[in-house]
C-alpha cells in the first residue's frame, strides 16, 4: 500500500507545470463560462415549468460536462499523462526500478482518476460561482439564494464515477501505444459515437456515453444504478487487464 501511495505521489509530482493539470481547472471553467455568457446575453435560462432555476442552470452545465467534456477531457488527460513517459522514453528507467510493474501502471491509473476528480470538483465550484455571478448581474433570471449544493456534489460525483470506465480504457490505450494520435483518435471517435448511441436502449451502457446518461438525470434526480455498477466494475476489470498487458511487455 505504501508503495502504491508513493507511486501516486510520484505521478502527481510529474503533473506539475503540465497542460494536463491546467486543463483540470480550465476545462470546466470554459464550459461554465460559455453557459454563463449565454444566459447573461439572453437574460433567461428558460427553465421548464416546475423546475427551479438553479436546477436547470445546473442541468445545462452537468449534461454537457458528462456527455461531451468528460469523455473528451479523459481522452486528452490520459493521452497527456501517457505522453509524459513516452516523450522521453521513461519506461526503461521506470521499469529498471525495484518496483512491481503493476505499481507503476496503478500510479498512472490513479493519477488519471485524481485529475478527473479534481476537475469534477472544479466544475461544481465554477458552476456555483458562475451562478452567483449571474444572480448578481441578472437578478431577473431567478437564481435564488438556495444553492442545491447536495445535488451538485451528488451528480458531479456520480458523473465522475461514470467516467471511471473511460479512464481505465483510455489509460490502457495511452500507455500501450506510444503514439499520442492513437489515444486521441480512439477517444474522440468513440465520444462522437456516444452522442448518437446514447439514444439506443443500451446507450447508457456505452462507456463514452455513460457519464452523459448519468448527468442527464440531474434535474429529475434519478439514479442510474445498473449503469454505475457496470461502469465501476468494468473500470476495475479493464484496469487489471491493462496493468497485466502493459506490465508483461518487453521494454525495448
Amino acid at each position, binding site marked *: 500500500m*505504501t*508503495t502504491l501511495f*508513493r*507511486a501516486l*505521489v*510520484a505521478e502527481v*509530482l*510529474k503533473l*506539475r*507545470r*503540465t497542460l494536463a493539470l491546467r486543463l483540470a481547472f480550465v476545462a470546466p471553467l470554459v464550459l461554465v463560462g460559455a453557459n454563463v455568457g449565454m444566459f447573461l446575453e439572453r437574460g433567461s435560462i428558460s427553465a421548464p415549468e416546475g423546475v427551479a432555476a438553479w436546477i436547470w442552470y445546473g442541468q445545462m452545465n452537468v449534461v454537457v460536462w458528462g456527455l461531451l467534456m468528460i469523455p473528451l477531457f479523459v481522452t486528452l488527460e490520459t493521452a497527456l499523462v501517457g505522453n*509524459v513517459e513516452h516523450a*522521453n*522514453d*521513461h519506461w*526503461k*528507467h*521506470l*521499469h*529498471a*526500478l*525495484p*518496483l*512491481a510493474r503493476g505499481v*507503476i501502471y496503478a500510479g498512472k491509473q490513479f493519477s488519471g482518476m485524481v485529475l478527473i476528480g479534481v476537475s469534477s470538483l472544479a466544475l461544481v465550484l465554477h458552476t456555483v460561482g458562475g451562478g452567483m455571478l449571474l444572480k448578481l448581474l441578472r437578478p431577473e433570471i431567478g437564481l435564488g439564494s438556495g444553492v442545491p449544493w447536495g445535488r451538485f456534489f451528488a451528480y458531479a460525483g456520480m458523473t465522475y464515477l461514470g467516467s471511471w470506465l473511460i479512464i481505465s480504457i483510455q489509460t490502457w490505450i495511452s500507455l500501450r501505444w506510444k503514439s499520442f494520435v492513437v489515444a486521441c483518435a480512439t477517444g474522440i471517435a468513440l465520444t462522437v459515437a456516444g452522442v448518437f448511441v446514447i439514444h439506443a436502449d443500451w446507450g447508457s451502457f456505452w462507456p463514452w456515453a455513460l457519464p452523459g446518461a448519468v448527468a442527464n438525470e440531474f434535474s429529475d434526480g434519478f439514479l442510474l444504478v445498473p449503469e454505475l455498477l457496470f461502469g465501476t466494475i468494468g473500470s476495475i476489470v479493464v484496469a487489471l487487464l491493462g496493468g497485466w498487458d502493459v506490465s508483461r511487455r*518487453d*521494454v*525495448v
Partner: protein
Amino acid sequence: MTDLAIATTRLRRSFGDLVAVDDVTLEVPRGAVYGFLGPNGAGKSTTIRLLLGLIRPDGGEVRLFGQPLLTNRIALLRRVGALVEGPSLYPHLTGRENLEITRQLVGATTDQRERALRLVHLEDAAGRLVKSYSTGMKQRLALALALMPEPDLLILDEPTNGLDPAGMREIREMITALPDALSITVFLSSHLLAEVEQVATHIGIIQGGQLLFQGTLEALQAEAANQLTVEVDQPDRAIELLQRQGWTVRTNSGYRMLLNVNGPADGALVNAQLVRGDVNVSHLSLTRPTLEDIFLAVTEESAGS
C-alpha cells in the same frame, strides 16, 4: 558469497530473425569497472536490457550477486542503479523534482537525494528546470538518479554519448572514482574505446551479439602483439631477409615496414638480422597497441572468420 556482481550463462535474445545476443556468458567481478565494448548494433544495449530485466531472454540466465534475476527481480534491482541509453528526465521539472520522483518510487531518503546531487556537482542547479540544462548536466543528473539509492552495481549504457570533451572527462572522472569512493561495481557500455581504456579494469568485447573477448585490460593487451616499426635503406632486401627468418612483414610506405613482435627483445633480434644482412636500419621503434588497435583486430578477425 559469489565474487561476481554479474554472471550470465549462455544468454540469448532474438528479435524476429535477428539474433541480438547470442550465447553471451559474462563475468563481472565485484569492484570492477567493466567496459563493455562493441560497435553500434553489436548487442550492448540488448544485453543491458536483459541485465535489468527490461526484456526476457530466449535462453540462458542472468545472475546478479549470485542470485537469479528472474525470480528475485525487485530485491536485486534494489542494489542496482542504471542509466540506459541516455538520460530519462522530465524537462518540465527541476533537477531536484526529477530526483524526488525517483526518490518517492524507490523509497530513498531526502539525505540520499541531496547527497546524489552533491556527488554529480549539481546542488547549485538543482532548482532549475531540466529543459534549461546542458547535455552534460542532464547526463550528470541521470547519473545522480542512478546513484541516489546507493547501489552496489551501476549499469551505464553509453554514458558519455553526445557530450563534449569536457563533459566526457567529467563523467569519466566520476566513474573512475566510484569503485573506491562508494565500493560500487560499474558495468559500462560504450563504443568509445579511448574512453573505456581510461576507466576500465575489465573488458568485454561484443560483436554481432557474440562475446569475442572477456578479461582484464592487461590480459587483453598481453594477447595483442606489439608493433615494431622499422625504416631501412633497402626495403626489398629487408623484406626478403625477414620473411626468410619467419617474420610477417607489412609495408606502409617506401622505406617503412611494420612487424608484429612480442617485445623489445624481438626488436633487437630484427635489428641484428638486418644488419647482418647488410641492410642499414635508420629507425626502429616499438609501439604498444591501443585498445582501438586491439578492438579492431579482434572484431576484424571475427568478421573474417
